[in-house]
């Protein structure tokens, strides 16, 4: 655990926390521009969060301690996952723990906490959202793990840092398997973050909601925590995609301030690019019917499996 | 063997007579005729056994012959006649497979018996084997009769004929130990069987009519649909 590792880790975490709402705001603003509207400033999510924190929360009479504790747990788990995913630098202090399966587990933990909070009050919408979210996750998770399989074969490890290092050196080169894994991971990312076409992040129609349906009963700082958790999750996924598929320009932790600056720049460019891509994609797609979502995720699962099989064939099955 | 050819010819003749009477038994349709044939078979058997006793010099066999004569040629036929009259049994002994096929089956059985017994390893007595083949044929024919005859008398006649084959086999070889005792025991068995058969039949008739009782009180077989594991 080098000093450089600790410093980069702290900077990384601070940046992630600070930038997550901004990223959400940025995507919203870009989407609005693409649709010909002026759009709110990218700072708007931060303003909303601070406003919510100042308000007095209102809890339902039937709410239990779960409603109070779950947001902290969910945000804590997401933040822990975020701390593990490399951003601008490699070899951060927590890099040895940065395991892809653990990240999946932490995301599952926050998902679980969210679903619990949704069920706490005992409303139709909360239950419905929780049931749908867990069902989608049931397909998203194997697709994710199968993508991990591709990385594990190519890099020999499931550690994100190690994978990034191997890929940055261009070890595996361009492979059709990686393309398939990328497609699968993109689908999973869309589903996990409740983006179009799986779930609309800005819908007002309760019947079609998944994520928002679970938050109908929350308010005040609890709502702020959930919003922050969602933003952090988006951040996490974009960073993860960047770390796995665009590992170029990431600064090693020992490379000093200038190296870090270069890494930061590269990271900002990557994130911005991904945000633009997301905004463009979301503007161009419609939300699919709820029961088409399994087919969407099933296709992702099959793509990932196909990627693994291609990999077996191309590595010549030893 | 220290005996002349005649003694064996005679023994085989008598044994062959017993076998022939088996076919006669198979051929008969009427109760009275069956009982007659049975008595004749008893006489033939007694003669055969006595001849063996004389040839082998075993006086015990005379007793066996006498017993056979008394029981099978006299007592049992008379008893059977009385019973048939008493129980008012049908007069015709119908056969399950018909007389002709029955005869054919009988011939086939004899052929089988010969096939089984005769292929001898060198050195053992061929003549003794012939006797055995005849006895085996008689036993098999007796069983055949038990099976193809529907009449109670058919069962009894078959069993008695079968027992005749046993005595024939037992009396054949020289020096079979306990032959008299065994023959007597066999006779006791058959007598008991016949007596028991009819005694039970009598009790049965006293108790009431109707065969197949065994299958009725606990009509077995689950009702359909109750197919448990």
């Amino acid at each position, binding site marked *: 655990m080098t000093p450089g590792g600790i410093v980069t880790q702290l900077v990384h975490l601070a940046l992630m926390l600070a930038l997550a709402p901004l990223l959400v705001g940025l995507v919203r603003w870009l989407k609005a521009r693409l649709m010909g509207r002026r759009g709110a400033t990218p700072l708007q999510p931060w303003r909303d969060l601070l406003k919510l924190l100042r308000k007095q929360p209102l809890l339902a009479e039937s709410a239990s301690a779960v409603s109070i504790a779950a947001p902290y747990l969910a945000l804590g788990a997401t933040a822990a996952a975020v701390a593990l995913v490399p951003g601008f630098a490699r070899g951060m202090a927590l890099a040895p723990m940065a395991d892809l399966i653990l990240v999946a587990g932490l995301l599952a933990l926050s998902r679980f906490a969210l679903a619990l909070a949704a069920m706490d*009050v005992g409303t139709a919408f909360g239950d419905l959202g929780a049931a749908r979210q867990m069902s989608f996750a049931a397909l998203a998770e194997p697709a994710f793990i199968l993508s991990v399989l591709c990385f594990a074969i190519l890099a020999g490890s499931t550690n994100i840092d190690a994978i990034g290092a191997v890929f940055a050196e261009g070890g595996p080169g361009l492979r059709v398997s990686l393309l398939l894994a990328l497609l699968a991971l993109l689908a999973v990312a869309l589903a996990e973050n409740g983006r179009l076409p799986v779930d609309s992040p800005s819908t007002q129609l309760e019947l079609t909601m998944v994520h928002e349906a679970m938050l109908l009963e929350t308010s005040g700082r609890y709502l702020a925590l959930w919003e922050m958790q969602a933003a952090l999750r988006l951040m996490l996924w974009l960073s993860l995609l960047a770390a796995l598929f665009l590992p170029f320009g990431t600064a090693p932790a020992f490379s000093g301030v200038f190296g870090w600056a270069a890494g930061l720049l590269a990271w900002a460019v990557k994130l911005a690019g991904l945000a633009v891509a997301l905004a463009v994609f979301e503007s161009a797609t419609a939300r699919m019917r709820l029961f088409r979502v399994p087919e969407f995720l099933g296709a992702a699962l099959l793509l990932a499996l196909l990627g693994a*099989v291609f990999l077996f064939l191309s590595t010549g099955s030893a | 063997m220290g005996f002349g050819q005649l003694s064996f010819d005679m023994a085989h003749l008598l044994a062959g007579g017993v076998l022939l009477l088996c076919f006669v038994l198979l051929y008969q349709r009427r109760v009275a005729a069956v009982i007659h044939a049975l008595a004749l078979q008893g006489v033939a058997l007694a003669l055969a056994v006595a001849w063996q006793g004389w040839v082998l010099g075993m006086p015990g066999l005379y007793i066996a012959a006498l017993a056979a004569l008394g029981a099978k040629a006299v007592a049992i036929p008379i008893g059977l006649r009385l019973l048939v009259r008493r129980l008012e049994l049908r007069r015709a002994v119908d056969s399950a497979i018909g007389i002709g096929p029955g005869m054919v089956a009988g011939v086939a059985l004899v052929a089988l018996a010969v096939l089984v017994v005769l292929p001898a390893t060198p050195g053992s007595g061929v003549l003794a084997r012939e006797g055995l083949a005849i006895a085996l044929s008689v036993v098999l024919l007796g069983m055949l009769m038990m099976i193809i005859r529907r009449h109670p008398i058919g069962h009894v006649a078959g069993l008695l004929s079968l027992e005749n084959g046993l005595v024939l086999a037992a009396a054949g070889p020289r020096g079979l130990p306990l032959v008299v005792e065994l023959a007597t025991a066999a006779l006791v068995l058959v007598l008991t069987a016949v007596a028991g058969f009819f005694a039970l039949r009598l009790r049965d008739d006293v108790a009431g009519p109707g065969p197949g009782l065994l299958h009725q009180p606990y009509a077995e077989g689950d009702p359909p649909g109750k197919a448990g594991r």
Partner: protein
Amino acid sequence: MTAALAILLCALLLLALAGGGAARWSALARGVHGGCLAVSVGLMALGGAVLAGGGGAPLLLPVGPPWAPLSLAVDGLSAWFLLLLGAVGAAAGLFAWTHEATAPPRRLIAYPLFLFGMALTLGAADGFTLILGFEAMSLASWGLLVARALESRGEDERLAARLYLGFAIFGAACLIPAIALMGGLAGDLSFAGLRAAPVQGGVAALVMALVLLGAGSRAGLVPLHGWLPIAHPVAPAGVSALMSCAMTKVALYVVARLLLDLGGPAQPPGWGAPLLVLGAASALLGALRATQEVDSKVLLACSTIEHVGLVAMGLGLSAILRAADLGPLASVAAGAALLHALGHALFKTLLFLAAGEVEHGAGSRRLDALGGLIHAMPLVALCTLFGAAAAAALPPLVGFAGEWLLLQALLSAWRVGALWVQVLVAVATAVAALSTALGAAAMLRFWGLIFLGRARTPRTLGAQEAAPPARAALVALVVLSVGAGMLPGSLLALAAPAVAQISGHAGLVVAGPLVVSASTVASDYWPLGVLGLLALFAGGLAAVLRRWSPHPAARGPVWDGGFIAPPAHLPFGDPATQASAAGFAQPLRRLLGGRLLMAREVVHLAAPGDPAPARLEAGFHDPVLPALLRPLSAGRERLAGAAEWLRDLGIRQFLGIAFGTLLLLLVLLALVDPA
């Protein structure tokens, strides 16, 4: 050590005898349960001691048939499972001590015998003792089911007992020939003898099939799992826990012992494939059923099928890797199996006992009759949450540790060269992940529907917190399972002898107290670090918000999307505005249930003009058990019917048959010349 086991076994037999006396002295019931508790603790200590210090030589018992004298021995593999059995037994014993101060003698006889059978199976040092213990276990647990059926007099319980016994006999009928084939002509059934002469070729395949059928049916591996969700929930909670957590593990122990330890060396890679496939099928079907069941204990039993499947996958994978000379990876898979077996035993016991407490407190096992119990039973709810989260494989709890190792083993199994293994493993990986996610959904549904929301029946409102000893059992299990989750490395170090026996390789490369690693290059897992991070972030966040957002929360009526306030006659709201158990399961039912569980949804619309409401009928059934039993049962019926024609024959026909037999022999004699 072996002598200690013998003493504990004798103590269990004595307790069974004492249980017989409970008809006269009802105070004996507590004594029996207390004794079982003490023996369980003893078993746990014994297992731990052997794992730490090594076992002794086999001990020949003075009983048993002369050709196969019973013998006992505790080695690493047995010790690991003894540890597990002891832990479950102690918790179940504490529960029984609380709730069954009076029990009929038939149950007090069967209960110690059940423990006895399991301990004997684990402590056996030869094939005959193993079978004897296995059968004693099956019979005694059948006795417990019968006792339950006699008390409730329900048709379901009777059916459960009958199915159970049928499968028990089936298991014996498969295991006995398997062990006989392993023993071979020499007939030496001691483990040492069996290990010295491993089976090979076609016989080996037959042995594997028989063991998988025999022990797999007891472990609940698909397709022989059908009895498990019917039988396990019938028993009282403690016994359910023992059946679900200990007995299935004992069956897996038999699989591991016979197939991996004794028969494992010198087998082709295909040796482990059936186990892997069956395990994957069980994991998937079990998890999917768990998301659909509406009875809390049935749900837990189905979840057991899932976890047993995961353990079986670990064992099968270990066999495949071992055959491919990938010893270190094989040891990872074996370690995953053992760790997950222990973890499952801990958290599933917790869940079953909690379900028992809920049934005791709220009077029902149906999810649709519960709800909102977190207010009435906060401690039970909290403990159960830990168990449910562990069962859902959430980090940093024990369930995640096992599944992490399993996934690591699966992810590195592609190193086995053959393409079919690679594809198989890839599919197995997907299935494992899918079942884990399904299991998480099932556990959320389990915990959420029982403890969260509003009460669905008035009875639920009268629920009370569990009694102190039961609470102690629950808390102890939470502590154990959290501890096991935090220190998987230490546990794996402890399990090293068992791992070595299963995988033929000494153990994990890196398994420190704080860290587990699949290999030097693969990734590491630091459970304590994860816990630290979580505590840091969640706690820090709470501390920060306490400063920045100090407003106390106000309470108000639930908004519920604008639903009107409940009427006066429904003081706790209209239950229909919450999801029902079937409703909560609907997305997954539509998603996966159609093919796998014969799920159906039919809307009955009233005719136009008819004011009757439309009705939705939804349901599912597991097609495997009927598909398995119906043809067998029909075939047996047909054979039995065919045998009946003999009964209807008359005496003449019987004579004919005898004559025919004789003729057949004579013809044989005429045709065949033996010389």
